[in-house]
């Protein structure tokens, strides 16, 4: 899956996802990716977020919507992402998932749920301070 967040220089915000889902899913199964607020969410004046992982779990928590709401209340994108992961952890400690968050000021962050096979999450960043796309990593929590 790819989840993408774009903040235009005017402050206009958009987000999106594209995926072929899980291997060997039951035919007809749809994950979180095409669900607004789950796979991704965007709101001008606030920011945007996109989630990735086990869509059957993620979609139950509307993580992208929740992250944007945290940012609306003033949380830094990193904090917003971490709060979302922490919420899901309470119910599914071993879930596979990560989220990226960005606000209209251009700040961004990411978070992921740590388990033995997933300790770091890689994501890509490109902004006006860089001359090329840059891979960044966060330690899962």
């Amino acid at each position, binding site marked *: 899956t790819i989840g993408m967040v*774009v903040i235009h220089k005017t402050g206009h915000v958009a987000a999106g996802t594209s995926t*072929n889902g899980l291997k060997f899913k039951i035919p007809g199964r749809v994950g979180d990716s095409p669900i607004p607020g789950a796979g991704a969410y965007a709101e001008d004046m606030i920011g945007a977020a996109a989630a990735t992982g086990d869509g059957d779990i993620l979609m139950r928590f509307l993580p992208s919507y929740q992250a944007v709401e945290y940012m609306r209340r003033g949380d830094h994108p990193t904090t917003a992402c971490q709060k979302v992961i922490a919420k899901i952890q309470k119910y599914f400690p071993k879930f596979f998932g990560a989220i990226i968050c960005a606000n209209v000021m251009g700040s961004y962050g990411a978070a992921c749920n740590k388990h033995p096979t997933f300790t770091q999450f890689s994501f890509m960043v*490109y902004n006006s301070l860089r001359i090329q796309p840059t891979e960044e990593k966060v330690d899962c929590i």
Partner: protein
Amino acid sequence: FSPLPLVLNTWPFKNATDAAWRTLVSGGTAVDAVENGCAVCETERCEGTVGFGGSPDEVGETTLDAMIMDGATMNVGAVGDLRRIKNAIGVARRVLDHTTHTLLVGDSATNFAESMGFTVEDLSTTTSKSLHSEWASKNCQPNFWRRVTPDPSKYCGPYKPSGSLEWAISAHKQVDIHNHD
């Protein structure tokens, strides 16, 4: 000094990031950038987790999900379980631009895509067929069934509901960095 514009995407899919950035630099909107960035992943298939030829379902078919959201208007276009169309994010964009709906699914989404000018084609590849054959040869392991008979941790379907309350398989063990939404 403003760090805007900003492109951020999950996983180390560099070419998608670059495509979105180039869209912005050439005067495109944020929505254009998301569409073009995700479309690159659909073409390149991004580690097999996006686009055609990846993640076959139980019958060996690849289906696609995609969504695009405009934060200025709160308009959304999305497709789920899209069959036989490669450019899922493009179809989602058409849902956003040319309908007042939010999400189209399955064969009806395919029909919509065809009416919008998208090519209907097989999404399977040698790789996806091989993946599915290997899975079937291993008694359909792993799978996402529970509380059915025959025992889904040992046998293929078709399945019927059973009275057992046991979880046959933990889904957590099946979803990882190579297999995700």
